[in-house]
């Protein structure tokens, strides 16, 4: 198994007293889906953002296809990685088609065609949705569009920051199914930040538990359940009633 991403000893301090990440290391295999889980303030979003250099770490290295990300142009790096934030992050003054075709358009390709294909991929009919404004979409539709936008440029890695966190339970379940389905068909490497343990278990091949900027345990879901490495991981699972 080749590592698509190798995170080594990442440390990030916001100030002398606030440490967001403290020497976190983990490998992500090609085609694997990894969930970063933890409470708010655990550093999971910061870790995700160091991958596409939206946050520059104070120490540590991230290898992307055997090259240090710090040696790459951040703009070029980001265009190879899809990104889905919690609120979708759609540009409100662009119609759906233009939003989805953003990255192809940035790299000088015909965004429109790619966009329509990507919309079909996430289960939205381009004929109905391509010309809509983002504010005319429901929350679930908006997240589908955001995922379509992230996939449109055929990225090597997909970064998702609590993509289903703001949705109601039914819509969330629908989108989780759709996402699992997509990954099965496309085999895209993905990092999924979530605070929902069930979601992590459902969708991820491996789960990284973060607590106060440290990596508590990194293992497949069933291993975490069977043999929690620390007291924190154990109580986390007990509190979530995942049994």
């Amino acid at each position: 198994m080749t590592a698509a991403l190798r995170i080594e000893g990442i440390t990030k301090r916001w100030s002398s007293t606030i440490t967001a990440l403290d020497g976190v290391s983990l490998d992500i295999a090609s085609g694997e889906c990894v969930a970063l889980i933890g409470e708010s303030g655990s550093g999971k979003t910061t870790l995700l953002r160091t991958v596409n250099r939206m946050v520059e770490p104070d120490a540590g290295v991230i290898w992307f296809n055997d090259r240090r990300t710090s040696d790459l142009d951040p703009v070029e790096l980001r265009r190879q990685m899809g990104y889905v934030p919690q609120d979708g992050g759609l540009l409100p003054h662009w119609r759906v088609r233009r939003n989805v075709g953003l990255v192809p358009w940035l790299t000088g390709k015909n965004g429109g065609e790619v966009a329509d294909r990507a919309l079909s991929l996430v289960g939205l009919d381009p004929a109905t949705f391509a010309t809509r404004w983002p504010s005319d979409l429901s929350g679930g539709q908006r997240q589908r569009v955001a995922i379509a936008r992230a996939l449109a440029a055929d990225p090597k890695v997909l970064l998702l920051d609590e993509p289903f966190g703001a949705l109601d339970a039914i819509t969330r379940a629908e989108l989780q199914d759709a996402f699992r389905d997509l990954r099965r068909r496309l085999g895209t490497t993905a990092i999924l930040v979530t605070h929902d343990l069930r979601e992590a278990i459902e969708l991820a091949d491996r789960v990284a538990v973060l607590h106060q900027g440290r990596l508590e345990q990194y293992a497949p879901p069933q291993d975490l359940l069977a043999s929690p490495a620390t007291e924190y991981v154990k109580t986390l699972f007990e509190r979530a009633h995942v049994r």
Partner: protein
Amino acid sequence: MKRHLIAILALIAPATTPSESRPVIVGSKPFGESYILAEMFAQLLEARGFRVERRLGLGATLIAYPALAKGAIDVYPEYTGTGLLAILGDSTSSTDPKAVYARVSTELEKRDGVRWLAPLGFENTYAIAVRKATADSLHLTTISDLARVGSGLRGGLTADFIGRPDGLPKLGAVYGLHLAEVKALLPAVKYQALAQGAVDVIDGYETDGSIERYHVVVLTDDRHAFPPYEAVAVVSPMLQRDLPGAVLTLSELSDRIDVARMRAWNRQLEVERVPVATIAHQALGSLHLLSDSAMAIRPKAQRESEIDYGHLAALTGRHLELVAISMVAAIVFAIPLALLLTAAPKRAETVIRAVGVLQTIPGIALVAFMIPLFGIGVFPALVALWLYSLYPIVRNTYTGIRDADPGAADAAKALGMTGRQVLIYVRLPLAAPVIMAGIRTAAVIDVGTATLAAFIGAGGLGDPIVSGLALSDTRMILSGAIPAALLALAVDGVLAVTERVVTTGRGRARRSPSRSR
């Protein structure tokens, strides 16, 4: 034969007629007497063949005098006391008229090259006035007399006179004058209040037309408490150099105007509402300064009941021109400045605050600062309006860009937009409504502020407002103020349509906010 004729014509025509050279620019300050005297200067020069340009109603001494020293105007009526107190900044000197004239004229000639011609012949200093009945029953002819009986009388004085060191405090010091009570009255009502017996003593100016109208008695300043305010035509250094003949013409008025005449003319203006041009024309006639042929030409004075719509349209056009040019210049400067500031957020607040401080400078002061640099007229007015328009545009553009949908901007960057692309394709379009709001605010303020252009002779709808205020002519004020208000509404309306065009997509999207949750 033909050759002879040419020779004769050459002999008759003077070498150069004055009107071939540059015009003489006549200025005035914004009050009735200054308008009348300036109009007399102008008509006298015209009668002697000079071309004249009028820049009447300049905002204040601190605008008119620097404009004269710089040559932006050539002549305006000024008072020796003002020269002493306001221009030389000296309040300690003697109150002897001859000494003050000598001091002011020599020092300012040395300092600025400005020439104070021989005084016109009357003084317009403070006057203390009482009803004729009061004067008769208490035997009052001087202020010393008044001081004896002062504690039994009620004063109605202007706030300015109560506060100025050369006003009421000076009377207390020199005469020991103490009135039973002192009420602050507006200049417009004090004569009426005196005539009706609401107060017993008022302050005014020696040449007020109302002194005649209400038959009040002016008490003699027997101990010379007030500085002398002799009226003088002051002449720019450039006029002395370019058109010495014009200076000579102006000095024909020296020592020709006495207090009684000036008071009568002021009365015609203030009470009978005779147009300034007519008063000046008749005044010059009564002084025998116009030839019979010049007297026959009536000045084209507009009658009070008529509004000259052509003139109003021209003023509105000029007003719009001032607003349009200053606004375009402000937009072209302020938006790029705000864009630069978003790249340096630490310095941004300081810079924007500095731009905001400009807003607090009173219009007349800002314009006065600019006279040494740009003189008077349209250009300094444009610079002033431009400075006043910057703040709302810079502030709104900066805030709009900084606060534009942070989620969208962050996602755009995370997907691989460069900083420049985020600015152009995301932040700027999302900030457009806020930027447009700033531009609209600036434009409406600009339409209002542009009336101050009249203070420096740049024209516009401020012209009738300033002269209307000076001549207490409500109709004239409204003939400027109403079009200015309508213009503000129209400009805002046009910009509202522009805003809708600029923000079409979002306007459409905003119609269904309920579905966006």
